[in-house]
């Protein structure tokens, strides 16, 4: 019971300190938004459209030009942009377009009766690879459309009824489509496999857990200061003169540190879930366990800092050093997968990496409870190590 009383007193002191709100809530939320924005901006710039851009200048605007547009648009290697001729030519000159396809106003006018579809014009650099590719991409659909017109015209002539043009034309086009699907050789756009973004489909999948881990460490500034203050103003000495045992005092302080860290983690997780659409609740139990393990590790480190530091300034210094060290090495700012080999290998040994890995197993890789046991075990091993060091130091320095 006295352990709870001591922890409650610590938390009361922390929440009365105005700077606690800054470190525990305001700063991590602002930084989460900032980092997510930064990651997102970087990814937007990296996106490239590998399709061949063609300006579509349709002066005919009839069923034949529409049919041609549809057939060309189905081709994944082409990007058709409807434009006026003048602006199309400007875009071509600027290099924004690789070609301009001009459909004349007479296109298809004489189709029924003469079987003449009319000539279309492709303006492009025929010597360039892109220009030649574009010509090849256009040639087949245009030929298919022309042959369907031819078939429709011939059918109408043979039967002697112009009304037979349309069914025969449509049937011919369908046959071409069918023929294309039965073809022994099918062409597809050959592009390099698109690299999946390292934060999945949401930049906050990196920013949110990164800030959770980073600010859980910075939060030590407030909780470790309580222990340092207790040593400085001799209240720790007074506590030791009561019937409270040493382990109870240590337990009370570490309980307060854990509670504070866990509350902060929970706040940031819920903020990520509800505001930033980061799907922590995809595996709620796994998120809870990794958060608790992170909180325990951070509390143990806070106890060590609180025992080692001699002043508030030293608490801030040690907490900042711990934050920079574990954040950078643990992949909270950027994933270790994009880091150099030696750096990444060393970073993967860090408890902060275990926390990040566990959270990203849930967020990016869509895994569940089974994926977080190893990260939780690593965090607990580190927590035990820091706790034993703190306890040893606590007994050594006495009061």
């Amino acid at each position, binding site marked *: *019971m*006295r352990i709870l*009383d*001591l922890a409650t*007193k610590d938390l*009361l*002191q922390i929440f*009365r*300190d105005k700077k606690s709100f800054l470190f525990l809530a305001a700063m991590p939320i602002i930084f989460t938004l900032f980092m997510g924005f930064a990651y997102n901006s970087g990814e937007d710039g990296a996106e490239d459209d590998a399709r061949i851009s063609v300006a579509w200048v349709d002066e005919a605007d009839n069923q034949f030009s529409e049919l041609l547009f549809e057939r060309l648009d189905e081709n994944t290697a082409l990007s058709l942009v409807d434009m006026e001729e003048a602006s199309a030519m400007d875009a071509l000159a600027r290099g924004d377009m690789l070609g301009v396809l001009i459909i004349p106003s007479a296109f298809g006018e004489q189709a029924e009766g003469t079987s003449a579809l009319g000539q279309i014009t492709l303006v492009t650099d025929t010597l360039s690879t892109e220009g030649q590719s574009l010509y090849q991409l256009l040639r087949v659909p245009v030929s298919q459309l022309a042959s369907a017109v031819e078939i429709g015209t011939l059918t109408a002539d043979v039967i002697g009824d112009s009304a037979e043009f349309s069914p025969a034309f449509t049937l011919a086009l369908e046959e071409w489509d069918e023929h294309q699907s039965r073809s022994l050789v099918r062409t597809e756009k050959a592009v390099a496999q698109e690299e999946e973004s390292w934060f999945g489909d949401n930049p906050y999948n990196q920013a949110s857990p990164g800030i959770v881990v980073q600010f859980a460490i910075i939060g030590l500034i407030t909780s470790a200061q309580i222990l340092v203050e207790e040593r400085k*103003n*001799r*209240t720790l*000495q*007074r*506590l*030791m*003169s*009561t*019937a*409270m*045992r040493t382990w109870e005092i240590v337990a009370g302080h570490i309980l307060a540190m854990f509670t504070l860290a866990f509350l902060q983690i929970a706040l940031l997780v819920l903020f990520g879930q509800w505001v930033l659409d980061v799907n922590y609740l995809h595996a709620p139990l796994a998120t809870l366990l990794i958060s608790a393990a992170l909180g325990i590790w951070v509390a143990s480190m806070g106890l060590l800092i609180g025992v080692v530091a001699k002043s508030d300034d030293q608490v801030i210094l040690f907490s900042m050093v711990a934050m920079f060290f574990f954040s950078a090495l643990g992949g909270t700012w950027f994933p270790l997968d994009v880091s150099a080999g030696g750096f990444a290998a060393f970073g993967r040994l860090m408890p902060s990496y275990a926390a990040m890995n566990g959270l990203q197993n849930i967020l990016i890789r869509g895994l569940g409870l089974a994926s977080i046991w190893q990260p939780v075990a690593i965090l607990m091993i580190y927590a035990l190590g820091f706790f034993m060091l703190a306890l040893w130091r606590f007994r050594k320095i*006495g*009061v």
Partner: protein
Amino acid sequence: MNAIEVKNLKKSFGDLQAVDSVNFAAAQGEILSLLGPNGAGKSTAISMLAGLLVPDGGSATLMGHSVTADPQAAKASLGVVPQDIALYPDLSARENLVFWGKMYGLRGAALNQRVDKVLEIIGLSERQKDRIGKFSGGMKRRVNIGAALLHKPDVVIMDEPTVGIDPQSRRHILDNVKALNKQGMTVLYTTHYMEEAAELSDHIAIMDQGKVIAFGTHAELIKLVGEQTRIDLTLNTESTVIFDAWRNTQGVSRIDAENGTVTLLVDDSNLVLPRLFEAAAQANVRITSVDIQEPNLESVFLHLTGRALRD
């Protein structure tokens, strides 16, 4: 059974023997003062009694419980008032007392009643909701004492509780100590103010350089210097000639010079004082002030150590 019993207690820090085979005891309901200059070993001795330091040797018991073999039982009977203000400045007086009451095992209605009572004892009921950080030094000292009284301990250790406070708060604290003692609490009081030791104590242990150099009641200690009177003289100049002359003057048993003041222990001031003035005139030294004091603890300390009981 003595409430406090210390036998051959020892503690050293490196080469410094802070407490050297110290013995003293206090019966239940007594006030025992440890009197001595700063660095005499008083705080080290009470730190061992409070279980904050482990003795190198000897034994200490509180209400029959060994502070080393059965520390929890010993601590349960003890309230400690540290020399420093060991309180949380960002909590109110009441919040501090409630917290310390819980640490001493109090709960619920009993805790609240006891906090109310202690606030009344220390005279801060009106200011109980104010944060300690806003209090004056004297008020902080009073809360510092109150926190040690919440669980009605059998023994209260007070380590220099009046250091650096105004006369009014000092008076309040001394009256509180007497009132607590009347209620049956045994008080171990450390101080380097001889007037406080003289006013409060049933027994006094005079400490110097880690040792108890005298132990007894106020009257017993005064007897150590017999009927000797203490004379403090201030001179217009420092002169070894006059010191030698006075040292050899009939009726002077001890002479000590410190910070421009010469302190002498003499058998009969009426007889000796004219001789001192005569010797000063012969040495061409002028006496600028004379202070004659009846025998007191200061005289005892001077008699025993050859030094004044000053900081």
